């Protein structure tokens, strides 16, 4: 018998069990470890012991914690419980002990009035009374309407300057409480009656971007730390909301449903008869009854829910087309956000779930299965314009049609793209001009403006060193900011533009946009610095009104 076999013979179950923990924690000597493993190969009981002990020290596999709507529900349940379990205030106990009911009742009322607002006594009550928190907004419009009811009605967003929305593209009759909107900025309470021939895109509170299809009638009804709300009377609202954990929940109210969203891409449609249809492309939404908040359906991506009939179907062409201006290719963003300025290129993002849609280059509207009842009057053939190789774009130029309302709000982007074309024409380079013309046609179409960023990005990469192309950075930054809500990338583009052309006639727009990006991104101190810089640089600037609308305290800076 070999020495090693001899050793193994003397290494029994007792020794094996003694050494088990040492071996598992890698603290046993190599020789002991060899003996241990040699023994468990031979001994079935010790092998079982080894497996169990190993599993014990490894621990159980913990299932993933709930996310999205489930997490939100759990949090609210914990909050409710905390209110229920909160100990009764001392004056209640005192009054019980005293046993004088009438006196105790009046004492309690008096006590409530005097002492009930101490820190931590009533979390919910304090939400509205503490001056350092949500009531930061003196703007009565903010949080003017919240449907949570009760103590959660905190009201106000962190800073009042954040509680505005902005028109990004398209046109509509935009009416605020004070009449028709004269700039592209608007507050809570604004109603949009979208024109019959064009859609409209808006950004709300710097947190979400929405596309309203032609003929849509929708009102922005609430903006508080816990709730953003839209009321949809008619038409289709497609919304992309990339919510951070502390951002408010979004609700879309229709005549017969409340759609509650934690973070997702979805559409809500109210038809002529008032019937509501909800479709989800990414994430998950909850559909509630507007009368009692009872859950009607929990909708996963790829599904459409008809509230009237209570039936489910696949997401269809109409919904995908409505949401296309909100497409934001995640794959690009992962490639390196520092250098990415391009937005969507007409492809349906990979993280949108569209049943029946092929993968790869076929992820375009052409290949979305359309139901028989879907109206096919949507612009298709969006995947053809590659652009990078200099091949001419296949998109026919669109002649801009401006309504008086649109002109009243002035689109800086249109000015910039016209200037770019003028400069390029002056340089007499046909190829460059063709390329820019294609981008211009995209920009002028409210249906396809979201794709102008990709086109311009390709234009910049090819002609970026040409002085005439400097403005491309400005325009791309604006589109990046408007459609992707990617403020960091937008600022980088504005900085590049200002660095290349500091004395450019559109430098004022870049400075204004830098300020706007900081406000919408919630960096108020930075926004204030930039606002002061703008006011000192352009004392008669055309954006002063918009800056003072959000920061009235800066009026003194003008003198």
């Amino acid at each position, binding site marked *: 018998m070999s020495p090693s076999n001899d050793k193994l013979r003397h290494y029994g179950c007792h020794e094996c069990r003694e050494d088990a923990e040492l071996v598992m924690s890698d603290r046993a000597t190599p020789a002991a470890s060899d003996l241990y493993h040699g023994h468990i190969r031979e001994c079935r009981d010790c092998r079982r012991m080894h497996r*169990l002990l190993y599993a014990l*020290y490894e621990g159980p596999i913990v299932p993933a914690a709930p996310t999205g709507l489930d997490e939100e529900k759990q*949090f609210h*349940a914990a909050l409710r419980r*905390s209110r229920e379990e909160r100990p009764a205030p001392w004056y209640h106990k005192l009054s019980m002990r005293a046993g004088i009911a009438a006196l105790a009742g009046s004492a309690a009322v008096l006590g409530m009035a005097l002492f009930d607002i101490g820190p*931590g006594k009533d979390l919910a009550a304090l939400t509205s009374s503490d*001056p350092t928190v949500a009531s930061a*907004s003196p703007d009565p419009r903010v949080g003017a309407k919240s449907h949570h009811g009760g103590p959660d009605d905190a009201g106000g967003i962190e800073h*009042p300057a954040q509680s505005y929305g902005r028109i990004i593209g398209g046109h509509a009759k935009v009416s605020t409480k004070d009449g028709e909107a004269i700039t592209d900025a608007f507050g809570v309470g604004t109603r949009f009656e979208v024109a019959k021939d064009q859609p409209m895109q808006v950004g709300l509170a710097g947190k979400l971007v929405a596309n309203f299809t032609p003929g849509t009638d929708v009102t922005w009804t609430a903006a508080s730390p816990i709730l953003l709300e839209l009321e949809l009377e008619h038409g289709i609202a497609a919304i992309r909301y990339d919510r951070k954990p502390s951002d408010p929940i979004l609700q879309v109210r229709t005549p017969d449903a409340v759609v509650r969203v934690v973070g997702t891409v979805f559409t809500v449609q109210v038809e002529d008869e008032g019937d509501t249809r909800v479709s989800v492309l990414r994430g998950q939404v909850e559909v509630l009854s507007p009368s009692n908040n009872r859950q009607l359906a929990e909708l996963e991506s790829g599904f459409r829910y008809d509230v009237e009939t209570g039936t489910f179907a696949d997401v269809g062409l109409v919904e995908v087309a409505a949401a296309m201006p909100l497409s934001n290719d995640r794959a690009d963003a992962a490639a390196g956000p520092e250098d990415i300025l391009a937005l969507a290129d007409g492809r349906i993002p990979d993280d949108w779930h569209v049943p029946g849609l092929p993968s790869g280059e076929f992820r375009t509207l052409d290949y979305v299965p359309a139901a028989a009842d879907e109206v096919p009057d949507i612009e298709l053939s969006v995947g053809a314009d590659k652009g990078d190789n200099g091949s001419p774009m296949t998109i026919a130029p669109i002649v801009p049609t401006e309504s008086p309302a649109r002109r009243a709000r002035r689109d800086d982007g249109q000015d910039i793209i016209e200037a770019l074309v003028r400069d390029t024409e002056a340089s007499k380079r046909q190829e460059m001009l063709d390329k820019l013309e294609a981008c211009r046609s995209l920009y002028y179409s409210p249906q396809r403006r979201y794709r102008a960023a990709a086109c311009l990005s390709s234009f910049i990469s090819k002609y970026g060193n040409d002085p005439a192309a400097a403005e491309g950075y400005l325009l791309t930054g604006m589109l990046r900011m408007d459609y992707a809500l990617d403020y960091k990338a937008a600022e980088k583009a504005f900085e590049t533009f200002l660095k290349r052309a500091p004395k450019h006639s559109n430098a004022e727009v870049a400075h204004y946009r830098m300020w706007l990006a900081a406000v919408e991104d919630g960096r108020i101190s930075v926004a204030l610095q930039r606002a002061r810089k703008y006011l000192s640089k352009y004392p008669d600037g055309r954006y002063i009104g918009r800056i003072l609308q959000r920061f009235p305290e800066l009026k003194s800076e003008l003198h």
Partner: protein
Amino acid sequence: MSYKLQNQPHDLEAVQRVENIAIAHGQPLSSESVGTDAVTYLSPEERLLIDRAKAGEHRALRQLYGQYHAQVRAHLFRLLGKDCEVDDLTQIVFARAFNALDKFQGNSTLSTWLYRITANTTHNLMRQRFRRERVKSAFGWFSQSAGTDVQPSRVEARDEAHRILQKVRPDLREVFVLYHYEGLTLQEISDILDKPVSTVGDRLTRARKKLRELVSA
């Protein structure tokens, strides 16, 4: 678990939030507004978060929940196993934490404090269950799978291991879970359970010994 704040990277979003609130109220911005104590268990962002949560700010409570609910839930799962009450207990732990925020002095990390609340919340439940299981097994209502000829698969071994863990006395199990699964030090466990380090060490040794006996049985 405890650390010095100088080593912690600043949460820019949190700092920005303080600035925003201060600006909204016309308060001057200063470095003091985000706290600069030399040594503390809490980072300035956490301290700020707790202040806001103490004031009842919904977003702060939500942020606290978002940051720690996975930790609490996972700990409960490791302690109690697959249990339909884990969701319920997670809610109870956070409800208690929200109500006890006023009493939190910052003498430990938030995570340690939540472990302590979890330990207090589950203590009686674990004891009740342990007693019930002991009675059951004494009456022979439970048939053990030990001694079977079939080698358990990896998943089965995990399940079996977890069943074995539930047979260990709650006070020993608690220490074992905190030390081996949560990765806490004896000192931290001592803080959480409010027991001397020597007691914690002793319980850990006894837990290991008991587990060795149970897996060898």
